[in-house]
C-alpha cells in the first residue's frame, strides 16, 4: 500500500506490502502486536517496538528513543509551506514590534517580542529577506498558529 508523508519539510513516498499479518518494506518487516505497538525487525534480525499515535493529520512515531512527526499528505497535493510566514508558537500578546513593512532584515534579527505563559519570547527572522506584511501591533492578542509577519526572501 502506498502512502505519502511529509517529514522535516520533505515529501516521502512509502509503500508497504502485506502478506498475512506481516508487513514489509525493503529489508524491514513489521507486525502489529495486540496492544497496538508495531514490532519492526531489521535485516540483521534486531527487533524493536515502535509506538504510533495520530493527532490530526500527523503520525507521531517513537522508535529506538527517537520521536518523529510524520504528516500524512494526499497524493499530488502541492507544497505551499515556503511562504515564509512566522507563526505564533502559542496564544499570547504582542509586546513589541521591531520592524515595519518593507524593512530589509537579516537572518536572526529580532522582529517581535511576544508574551506567552508569562515569559517573553523573541520572534527572529529565519533568513535574510524583506518584510512584506506585519499583521499585528503592540498589545494585540494572538492565537496559536496566527501568522505574525510575512516575509519574502
Amino acid at each position, binding site marked *: 500500500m502506498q502512502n505519502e508523508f511529509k517529514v522535516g519539510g520533505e515529501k516521502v513516498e512509502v509503500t508497504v506490502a502485506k502478506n498475512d499479518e506481516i508487513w514489509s518494506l525493503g529489508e524491514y518487516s513489521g507486525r*502489529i502486536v495486540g496492544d497496538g505497538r508495531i514490532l519492526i525487525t531489521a535485516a540483521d534480525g534486531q527487533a524493536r517496538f515502535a509506538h504510533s*499515535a495520530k493527532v490530526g493529520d500527523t503520525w507521531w512515531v517513537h522508535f529506538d528513543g527517537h520521536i518523529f512527526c510524520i504528516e500524512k499528505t494526499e497524493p499530488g497535493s502541492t507544497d505551499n509551506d515556503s511562504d515564509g510566514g512566522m507563526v505564533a508558537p502559542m496564544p499570547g500578546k504582542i509586546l513589541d514590534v521591531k520592524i515595519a513593512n518593507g524593512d530589509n532584515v537579516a537572518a536572526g534579527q529580532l522582529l517581535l517580542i511576544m508574551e506567552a505563559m508569562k515569559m517573553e519570547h523573541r520572534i527572529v527572522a529565519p533568513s535574510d529577506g524583506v518584510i512584506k506584511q506585519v499583521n499585528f501591533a503592540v498589545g494585540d492578542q494572538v492565537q496559536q498558529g496566527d501568522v505574525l509577519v510575512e516575509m519574502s526572501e
Partner: protein
Amino acid sequence: MINTVLVANRGEIACRILRACNEAGLNSIAIYAPNDAGTLFTELASRSVRLEGETIADTYLNQQQILAIAVEYGADAIHPGFGFLSERADFAQAVIDAGINWIGPAPQAIEMMGDKMTARMTMKAAGVPVIPGEEIDSDDEAEMVAAIVESSQRVGYPLLLKASSGGGGKGMRKVEDPDELVEAIMSARREAITAFGDGRVYVERLLTGSKHVEIQILADKHGRTIHLGERECSVQRRHQKVFEESPCPVMTEGLRSRMGEAAVLAAKAVDYVGAGTVEFLLAANGEFFFLEMNTRIQVEHPVTEMVTGVDLVREQLRIAAGEPMSCGELMMRGHSIEVRLYAEDASNNFLPAIGPLAIFRAPQGPGIRLDTGVREGDLVTPNYDPMLAKLIVWAPSRSEALQRMRRALDEFVVLGTTTNIRFLRELCDNRDVVSGRTDTMLIERVWPDGWHPDYEETTLDAALMAAAISESAGLHRAVVAQAGIESGPTSPFQTLNRRYP
C-alpha cells in the same frame, strides 16, 4: 496535631503532597480550577473542591476563596507546594490569622528571603558571602535605569539583571554589551511587572563557569536546624533547571560542611522553620556565593530524598504539627539524578508546546521514580507551566545513575505533544555532563546555534515504515477501540463475565 491538610496547588506537586498525606493517615483537601477537573491530583485527595473563576488570579492565587474553602471544610493546615502562593508572606499570615497551620516558615522569613535585595543585605549582615553586585533602591523607571547604568560600570560586564521579586528565570537578563543594557533593563522590568507586580531590578556580576549548588535545609520548632547535603542544578535553559543531581560531582567533605554551615547560618538568620533551600553559586576555585533562599519545597527535592532516605514532605507535615523532625544522623548513599520533562520544543529555542498526550508510557524498573500530575489522554494547555513530569533515578554510583537515566529516557514514550525527552537523552551523553564538568552556561556552550536531534537514516526509515503500517492498517482506530469496552480478549469486562467451572 494536624488532621486535615488543604493542598493549595495543582498537578505534579499536589500529587506528591496528597500522597504524603495519605501515607501519614491525614485527611486531605484538593482544590482545583475548572480547567483542571478530572486531572490526577483531584482524585488523590479525601475531598476535592472546585474553585470558582477562570484565570489563575481568580483560582490558585485567590487567597480569600482558598481560605474560605479551608474554613468551610475544616482544614487545620495548608500546604502551598511551590509556585502560586508558596512564597506569599501575606497569604501565610492570613492562614495563621485564620487559626490554620501554615506548612512553611513564618511570614517574616518568607518576606526577608522573598525580596532578593533584602535577602542579599540580610545575608551580608549574617556573614554569608554574596555575589559581587549592587542593590538599586528605586522603583521609578527613569531613576532605576540611570542608577543601573551607573552601577554597571562598577559591577562590570558580563552582568546579570535580576528582578527583586523574581523567580523561575522571570525578570532576569544577561547583559554582555553595555549597548544592550537599557533595552535589557526595560525588558526585565516589563516581565517582572507582569509576573510579580513589582518592577524593581538590581545588578549582579555574571559569574561564568560557575556551578549552581544548593543546600537542603530542615528546621523544626524544637531548635534543630540541619542540612541534608547538596544538589547540583547547573544545567539550565532560560534560567530554569532541567538536570539536577545529588551529590554534586566535584563536592568534597570539607566543602560540603562549609556550604552546609553557611546554609544553616542563613536559615538561622531568619529563624527558619520547615524545609527550605539555600542556593549558591560555586566558582571553579571553590569559592561560593549566596544566590537566594527558597522558602518552600523545591521541584528537585526528590534527588535529596533518594540519597538521604529522608521523606522531605513527611518531615514538613511533622514539623508543622509541632513534632521534632524524625531523621537522625544522616548518611548520603549512592547517586541520584532528576530530569524535568517539559512540553517544549528543544530544537526551537525551548518554546513551550501544547497538545494531547496521545500516548504517555513511563519507564519502569529498579531505581526509577516518576513524579507527575498527568496521564495518557490529558491535554497540555497553555494555562499552566509546561513541566509534565520529573524523572528521577537512583544508582550506587554517578556513572550507573547516568546509564540508568539513559535507559529510562529511551523507554519513555510521549506522543502527541512535543517534549524535551530526546534533548535530555542526548544531554546524558554530553562529554561535560558525563565528566561532571557542568556549569550554568553548559547548554549555550554545547549548542550555541541551538539543539537539533541527531539520528541515523535507518531510524527514520523504520519510523516511516511504522507510520505507513499504522496508516494502512487504520491503527489509530484500533488503538481507540482497544480502550473501549467491546475490545479484544484482554478486556477486563470480558474476564468479569467469565465463568470458571
